[in-house]
C-alpha cells in the first residue's frame, strides 16, 4: 500500500505545484490525503480506485484552502480544471503525469539553486521526506533545515525559475545536473551510514529508478541506475555487527544482494547493447561491475579497472578520478607503482584537505611495508576525515601499522580495496565538474623516492 501511495503522492504533488505554483500548499494537501488514507483504508478497506481517491482528497483540500484565502481565484479555477481532467485509470508515469514529474525534478535540481538546497528540496518534494527526517540525515536542526527549504523555494519564486522541462537542446545537460543531485543523495547515505543518513542511499536508488521510468532512453540515467544498484548491493557487507567499516577484500561476498547485482548488470547490459560510447556514469558502473562479479578480492580484474579509469579521466579530468586510478594501479602493478602514480596526483592543489589522498597513500605504504611512513599518512588522513565510521577505520589501520612495526620483509598483503569509499564516491558528479578544472601537465609519470628508510 505504501509503495502505491508513494507513486500517486508524487504525481499529485507535481500536478498541484504546476497549477498553483505553491509548493507548500501542494505538499501539505497531498500529505493530508496520504494521512487520511493510512488512517482510513486499514479500517474501511482500500477503495476500488486508490489513485482517484487520493487525487480527489488532495484536490478537495487544496480547493478548501484556496477558497479560504479568497485572493487566489485563478488558482482555484485551475485546481477545479485539474480535478475535472484527472482520469481514474492512472499510469503514474504516463502522459501529463510524466511531464509534471519531470518539471518537478528539473525545477528542484535547477542549477541556479544552491547545491544543498537542490538536495534538500528533491528529498522533501520528490522523495516525500519530512523536514525532521532531512534534518536528522544532514545533522542539522529542524529549523535550520526548514530555513534551507524555505530559502530554496523562495529563490524559485523570486528568480522566476519556471516549473518546466528544459528546452530540448538543454535537456541532456540539465539531466546530468539532476543525476548529480541523485548521486549526491546516494553518496551521503553510502559514505555516512551511521550519521543518520543511511536511508538516503535507498532514496537515491528509488530516485534513479523514477528517473529511469521518466527518461527511459537517456544513457547516463541508465548508467547511474546500474552504478547505484551495483554499489547498493554491497550495503549489508560494508559494515560489521558493530557498525565498523569492512574493507572490500574482507567483506563476506555471500552477503552481497545478488538480486540487485543481477538487476544492475541487466541495466548495464542493455546500455552496452545500444552501442553508444559510455558516459561517466556508465564507466563507473562498469568499474562497479568488475567488483560485483569478481568471485573474491584476489580475482578482481585491476587491469581492466585501470583502463576504465583512463577512459573516465579523458571525459572527466578530475584529480579525484586520477586518485582512484592511482589506487587501482597500486593493485594492478603493486604498491610501488601505485605510489609513483600517486606522486603526480599529490601535486594537484585541488585535493588539499581531501582525506582520501593521504588515506590511499597510507594504504600503499602499508602494503609496501613502510610502517612509519604509513602511520604518518594515516595520521594526516585522520586530521581530515569527516565521518565517524571512516575515522574509526583509519584509527584501526593506524594501530595495526604501529603495533606490527612492519618491515619491508613482511608485507601486509591485504590491500584496502577502496576501503573507505566506493569507487564512485570519490568521483565528482558531472554536473559539478565546473568546480574542478583540468589537471595540468602530463597525466601520470614521475617516480619519487619512496620509503626512504627501507
Amino acid at each position, binding site marked *: 500500500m505504501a509503495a502505491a501511495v508513494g507513486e500517486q503522492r508524487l504525481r499529485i504533488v507535481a500536478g498541484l505545484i504546476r497549477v498553483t505554483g505553491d509548493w507548500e500548499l501542494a505538499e501539505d494537501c497531498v500529505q493530508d490525503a496520504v494521512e487520511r488514507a493510512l488512517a482510513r483504508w486499514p479500517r474501511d478497506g482500500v477503495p476500488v480506485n486508490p489513485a482517484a481517491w487520493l487525487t480527489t482528497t488532495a484536490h478537495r483540500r487544496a480547493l478548501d484552502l484556496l477558497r479560504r484565502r479568497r485572493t487566489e481565484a485563478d488558482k482555484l479555477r485551475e485546481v477545479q480544471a485539474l480535478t475535472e481532467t484527472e482520469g481514474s485509470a492512472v499510469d503514474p508515469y504516463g502522459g501529463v503525469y510524466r511531464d509534471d514529474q519531470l518539471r518537478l525534478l528539473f525545477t528542484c535540481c*535547477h542549477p*541556479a539553486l544552491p547545491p544543498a538546497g537542490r538536495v534538500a528540496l528533491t528529498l522533501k518534494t520528490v522523495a516525500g521526506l519530512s523536514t525532521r527526517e532531512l534534518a536528522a540525515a544532514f545533522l542539522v536542526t529542524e529549523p535550520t533545515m526548514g530555513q534551507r527549504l524555505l530559502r530554496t523555494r523562495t529563490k524559485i519564486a*523570486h*528568480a*522566476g*525559475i*519556471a516549473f*518546466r522541462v*528544459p*528546452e530540448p537542446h*538543454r535537456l541532456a545537460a540539465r539531466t546530468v545536473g539532476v543525476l548529480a543531485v541523485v548521486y549526491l543523495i546516494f553518496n551521503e547515505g553510502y559514505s555516512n551510514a551511521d550519521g543518520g543518513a543511511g536511508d538516503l542511499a535507498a532514496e537515491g536508488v528509488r530516485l534513479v529508478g523514477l528517473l529511469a521510468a521518466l527518461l527511459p532512453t537517456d544513457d547516463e540515467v541508465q548508467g547511474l541506475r546500474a552504478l547505484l544498484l551495483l554499489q547498493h548491493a554491497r550495503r549489508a557487507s560494508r559494515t560489521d555487527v558493530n557498525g565498523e567499516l569492512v574493507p572490500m577484500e574482507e567483506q563476506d561476498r555471500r552477503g552481497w544482494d545478488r538480486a540487485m547485482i543481477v538487476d544492475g548488470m541487466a541495466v548495464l547490459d542493455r546500455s552496452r547493447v545500444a552501442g553508444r560510447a559510455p558516459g561517466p556514469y556508465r564507466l563507473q558502473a562498469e568499474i562497479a561491475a568488475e567488483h560485483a562479479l569478481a568471485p573474491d578480492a584476489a580475482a578482481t580484474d585491476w587491469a581492466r579497472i585501470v583502463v576504465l579509469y583512463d577512459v573516465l579521466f579523458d571525459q572527466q579530468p578530475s584529480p579525484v578520478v586520477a586518485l582512484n586510478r592511482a589506487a587501482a594501479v597500486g593493485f594492478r602493478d603493486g604498491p610501488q607503482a601505485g605510489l609513483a602514480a600517486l606522486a603526480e596526483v599529490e601535486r594537484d592543489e585541488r585535493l588539499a584537505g581531501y582525506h582520501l589522498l593521504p588515506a590511499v597513500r597510507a594504504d600503499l605504504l602499508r602494503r609496501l611495508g613502510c610502517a612509519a611512513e604509513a602511520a604518518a599518512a594515516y595520521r594526516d588522513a585522520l586530521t581530515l576525515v569527516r565521518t565517524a565510521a571512516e575515522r574509526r577505520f583509519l584509527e584501526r589501520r593506524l594501530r595495526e601499522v604501529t603495533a606490527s612495526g612492519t618491515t619491508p620483509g613482511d608485507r601486509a598483503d591485504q590491500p584496502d580495496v577502496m576501503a573507505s569509499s566506493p569507487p564512485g564516491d570519490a568521483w565528482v558528479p558531472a554536473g559539478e565538474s565546473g568546480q574542478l578544472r583540468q589537471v595540468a601537465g602530463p597525466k601520470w609519470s614521475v617516480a619519487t623516492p619512496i620509503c626512504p628508510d627501507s
Partner: protein
Amino acid sequence: MKYLMFVATDPEPDTSSEPHTDVEAWFADVEGRGKWVIGDRVRPAEDATTVRVRSGELLVTDGPYTESKDWIVGFDVLDCEDLDEAIEIASKHPMARAGRLELRPFWPIDEG
C-alpha cells in the same frame, strides 16, 4: 519578468576556440524578439563617483563603492518569460565568454 543583467569582466575568460559571437547580432536578436528594454556600456570604475549622506552631510568620493578585480562594464534590462529564457539570452552574449554576466530579478515595489 524583468531581469537586470550586469555585464562584468572576469579574470579567467574563456580561452577555447569556439566561434566568436558579436554583440550587434546578439542585440538584434534580443531586441527583435521584444526581450530587450534598455541597456548600455558604462565607463570604467575610475570614472565612478560614490555618493553618501551622513548626519546631513553630503559625502562625495572618487571611485566605486567596492574594491574588486572585476568591473561592471555594462548592463541590460531583459523582459523574459522566466529565468531559463534569461539564462539562454545571457549565454549568447559575447561577454558570457569574455567575462561574466549576473542576472538579478526585478523586485517590484508593490511586491513584499
